[in-house]
């Protein structure tokens, strides 16, 4: 396998971007990544998108987006793994470059979610669950994570305050991210008095509905050196699935696909969780960040909530999580999310994070975790400054 590096990143502002279409969002992010990398061509493009068919009635994104990016005849592939589509597009691009099939590959992600109403978006997102045995009965995504939250609270005594602490921390970080959808701080009181979506999860426990695009350029370390860019090397990649329906799993207070994907990535990198300096993880709901921290092996089961309350995962803490604001504050255009995580860790590793959210002490090694559905698929990557 060849050594692979990320040499360019770009993203759009996340939010309700009514004036921009799916193709506008993707191309804007893609051009920013191309400009940042300084590459003169692409050999291939992997596009993460969950459900453009349900959101805007558009499939065949490989053709559409290569066309509008001015890349006629480019090999362009759409990758789908629900909310992990972006992370999986990144992994496919990594495999493509590492294998020698292609030298310069874009991993992009996009979702245009506000061209339909709230109940339509709820329906589209629910397509990531088991349609016949969860959605049929009225389960929603907040509902499925609420089932996990109640089980976690019952088993470990996880509290309302611990969930709120995740939201407060991520909004604090996001308040310093000019690309965030909701760049403002919230208090625990605001979280706990916000509208109930699926008990015990309130609207300020949930990531929002977001339009946005993100893109990164991957190439070999040899080509990266010639480009004269800071080299952020991909040390490890892991990918695993789990039973799609929550009720089919043995234990819904943990995320097995996350544990398995992380173990693969650590093995490939020759590292452990203790070697990581910070992480971007999939906080689609506050409870998700807590369970992911435990499933990655960062904390013992049942101990992560307390750590968030104590500030251990804040910008100044021992292990910062979601410096970008996470899905909660930055926004969650589902297909773009996994790629946007890469944009943030590359900025942090280059020392370029905006507005005072740059981590001190020159972080060297980062982990990203991006998951689909209620954890039915997960992609984990480890990146390091070369």
């Amino acid at each position, binding site marked *: 396998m060849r050594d692979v590096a990320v040499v360019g990143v770009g993203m759009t502002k996340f939010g309700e971007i009514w004036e921009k279409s799916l193709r506008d969002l993707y191309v804007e992010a893609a051009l920013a990544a191309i400009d940042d990398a300084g590459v003169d061509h692409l050999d291939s493009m992997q596009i993460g998108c969950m459900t453009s068919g349900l959101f805007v009635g558009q499939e065949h994104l490989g053709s559409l987006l290569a066309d509008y990016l001015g890349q006629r005849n480019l090999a362009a592939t759409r990758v789908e793994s629900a909310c992990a589509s972006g992370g999986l597009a990144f992994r496919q691009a990594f495999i493509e470059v590492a294998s020698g099939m292609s030298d310069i590959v874009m991993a992009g992600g996009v979702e245009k979610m506000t061209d339909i109403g709230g*109940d339509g978006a709820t329906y589209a997102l629910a397509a990531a669950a088991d349609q016949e045995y969860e959605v049929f009965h009225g389960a929603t995504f907040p509902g499925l994570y609420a089932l996990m939250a109640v089980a976690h609270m019952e088993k470990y005594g996880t509290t309302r305050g611990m969930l709120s602490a995740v939201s407060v921390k991520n909004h604090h970080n996001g308040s310093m991210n000019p690309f965030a959808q909701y760049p403002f701080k919230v208090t625990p009181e605001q979280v706990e008095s916000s509208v109930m979506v699926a008990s015990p999860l309130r609207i300020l426990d949930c990531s929002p509905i977001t339009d946005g695009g993100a893109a990164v350029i991957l190439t070999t370390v040899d080509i990266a050196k010639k480009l004269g860019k800071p080299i952020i090397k991909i040390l490890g990649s892991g990918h695993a699935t789990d039973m799609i329906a929550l009720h089919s799993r043995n234990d819904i207070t943990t995320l097995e696909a996350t544990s398995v994907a992380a173990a693969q990535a650590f093995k490939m990198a020759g590292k452990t969780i203790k070697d990581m300096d910070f992480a971007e993880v999939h906080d689609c709901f506050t409870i998700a960040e807590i369970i992911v921290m435990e499933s990655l092996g960062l904390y013992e089961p049942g101990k992560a909530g307390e750590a968030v309350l104590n500030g251990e995962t804040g910008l100044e803490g021992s292990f910062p999580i979601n410096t970008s604001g996470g899905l909660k504050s930055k926004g969650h255009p589902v297909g773009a999310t996994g790629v946007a995580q890469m944009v943030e860790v590359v900025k942090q590793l280059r020392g370029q994070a905006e507005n005072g959210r740059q981590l001190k002490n020159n972080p060297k090694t980062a982990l990203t975790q991006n998951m689909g559905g209620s954890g039915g698929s997960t992609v984990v990557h480890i990146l390091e400054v070369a």
Partner: protein
Amino acid sequence: MFPSRIWRDCKHRYRLEAGKCTKCGKIVFPYRLICPECGHREFEKVILPDTGKLLTYSVIRVAPSQFTDQAPYAIGIAELENGVKLLAQITDCDVDKIKVGMEIRIEFRRIQTDSHQGVLSYGYKFVPKWY
């Protein structure tokens, strides 16, 4: 929703038919072609018990389009007496009184009405045992 999509799952939703692996005894619901535990491919038909215990629940207040007229409603995962776990709505009760660990029985109910073709979907729901 085309009627064939509802019809093909009737045996599971109406009669709670499950498959029991003839090698390792794992019970799968709905029916599968291969056992997720041991990889065996032969199952015998078993009917799920209609009582169990609630493992977790949530009251849904923001519902997908085909359920907006039912909100707020509760969903939960119950473990049946033979260890099989199911997700369904919890009905016929005050949603504020639902608790983890409470005993439920399974009843046959209408689940949703498809607004475009008017096809009614039926299946199972959980009812707290004391009701």
